């Protein structure tokens, strides 16, 4: 018996060791590179790069696109997960597959398809121009691309949880005459709130960092259609390594803040659950 306990302890520390090593090499070192490069020429250069007016404009645009994408995809995620797990219908597998498709579509292709639809070569373009709506190489295109690449994130997180909690409680409530919204908010929501939070965090993180698809659709207009990742690319292409890494570090900091918020909320939630 003792032997086995030792054995499992060895396994435990071995696995923890592997994980730590893996994350250290794959995550900590690259971040370390970002930070050291950003601060290579001292604090002042860093602050200057971060408070540059183009950087601020890029930051605002990134936030805007991220918020819209997260709202859209949360609505979609809730609806789709509810529809898929609570009802039987034909083509369910196809539907879930289609929702997943954006994650695996190359960002380049994601950008390309919107160019084909809304770009100058499209049959829609004359109408859009008449209506004075510019989609590609303008903010709406960037938002669309961001929504696209993060499309299934919330859905993916909700699906397994909704599936595993089953429908018994909800059915009971429905039979007792509860309305849809009440069922959702009183019965389902408490079960899925952590999964939902996970999903939103993932979605936000991914939306902030999206590069490829947005890059195809942005046109890189300085101060107008540059998101933070694009701004990093531009700085990099201008040999401004230090500012490029400084701007990347904003994204890293945003991500870290986001993850801390999640972790705190989660911790509190779990405590609540225990009481």
């Amino acid at each position, binding site marked *: 018996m003792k032997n086995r306990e030792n054995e499992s302890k060895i396994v435990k520390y071995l696995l923890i060791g592997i994980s730590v090593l893996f994350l250290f090499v794959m995550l900590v070192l690259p971040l370390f590179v970002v930070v050291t490069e950003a601060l290579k020429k001292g604090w002042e250069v860093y602050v200057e790069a971060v408070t540059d007016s183009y950087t601020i404009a890029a930051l605002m645009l990134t936030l*805007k696109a991220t*918020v*819209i994408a997260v*709202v859209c995809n949360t609505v979609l995620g809730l609806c789709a997960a509810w529809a898929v797990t609570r009802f039987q219908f034909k083509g369910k597998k196809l539907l879930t597959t289609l929702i997943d498709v954006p994650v695996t579509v190359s960002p380049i292709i994601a950008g390309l398809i919107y*160019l084909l639809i*809304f*770009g*100058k*070569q499209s049959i829609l*373009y004359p109408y859009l121009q008449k209506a004075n*709506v*510019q989609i*590609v*190489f*303008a*903010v*709406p295109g960037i*938002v669309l691309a961001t929504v696209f690449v993060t499309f299934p994130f919330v859905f993916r997180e909700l699906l397994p949880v909704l599936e595993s909690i089953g429908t018994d409680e909800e059915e009971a409530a429905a039979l007792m005459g509860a309305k849809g*919204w*009440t069922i959702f908010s009183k019965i389902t929501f408490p079960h899925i709130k952590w999964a939902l939070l996970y999903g939103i965090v993932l979605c936000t993180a991914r939306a902030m960092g999206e590069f490829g698809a947005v890059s195809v659709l942005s*046109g*890189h*207009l*300085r*101060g*107008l259609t540059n998101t933070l990742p694009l701004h990093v690319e*531009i700085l*990099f*292409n*201008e*040999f401004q*390594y230090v500012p490029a890494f400084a701007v990347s570090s904003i994204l890293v900091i945003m991500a870290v803040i986001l993850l801390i918020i999640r972790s705190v909320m989660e911790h509190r939630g779990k405590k609540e659950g225990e009481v």
Partner: protein
Amino acid sequence: MTKKKLRSLCLAAVLGIAAFTGVCSYDAGAGSDVHIINVSYDPTRELYESYNKIFQEHWKEETGQDVDVIQSHGGSGKQALEVINGLQADVVTLALEYDINAIQDAGMIDEGWKEELPDDSAPYTSTIVFLVRKGNPKNIQDWDDLIRDDVDVITPNPKTSGGARWNYLAAWAYAQKAYNNQEDKMEEFIKKLYQNVLVLDSGARSATTSFVENGQGDVLIAWENEAFLSVQDDPDEFEIINPSISVLAQPSVAVVDEVAENRGTEDIAKEYLNYLYSDDAQRIAAENYYRPVNEEILKEYSDVFDLTMELKTIDDFSGWQEVQEKHFADGGIFDQIYGN
């Protein structure tokens, strides 16, 4: 409960609409009377940053209007493609005539743009040189050194980088001269050269990064202005070698007629390009290591630029159309280099 629900629903709807209209209102250059968009390629940022300032003053003097110039930089071919796809550029200032021709073919630039401005509508030029490590440890002097077995070359992919086509053509120009226009030997030379390429980056800037930051290779085939920038940043690390023969790279500029007409910015767009030929603008070009087309001003900077190099123009290769088909199209010479 229902009241609350209703209220939250209304709130959500209002928020949604607000977000949508906020996104769709495409309002640019607030605060100025007028703005124009200049779509350019990667390495011209500093150049146009300085130039836009003097142009703003110039335009204010002429007309009393405040003008805002919004810049976009990226790979030359990609930028042309975006203009074709609806990027609202008033003027394009790209690396290759070929890319502007593509916009013309899409019907957005009137034919004959090349004759609109002096010197083939190229207000500044550049050339292709070698950047080597300090002290030139591999003793690289000219193009034939690049095909030595012990030399590793860094150059971007001419298929993905417009600028890199000039690199390729500069090598081709050397081969033409060295092998007296014997095609098979010239192809052999180019093949050997690209077999020595260690990293074939997708753009000029990432090639520079591979060479400068990551220490790959012995020689970087680079645009002269970029090479100067690298040396300026790390004078103890790199030096420039001027080969015996190279190309006269003419980055072209043009007004995108369709967009400018639509937006009513033709005058300002034309003046924006015209003013590039003024003495002040030419000096700004020279200070950013582009060779000014104004001979007088070029001479002022003769200590910077090597004016003795033999420079071939695109016409020596029978124009871009021909070059494109022969070398870079699918199945062209460049593809054959890597075909077994």
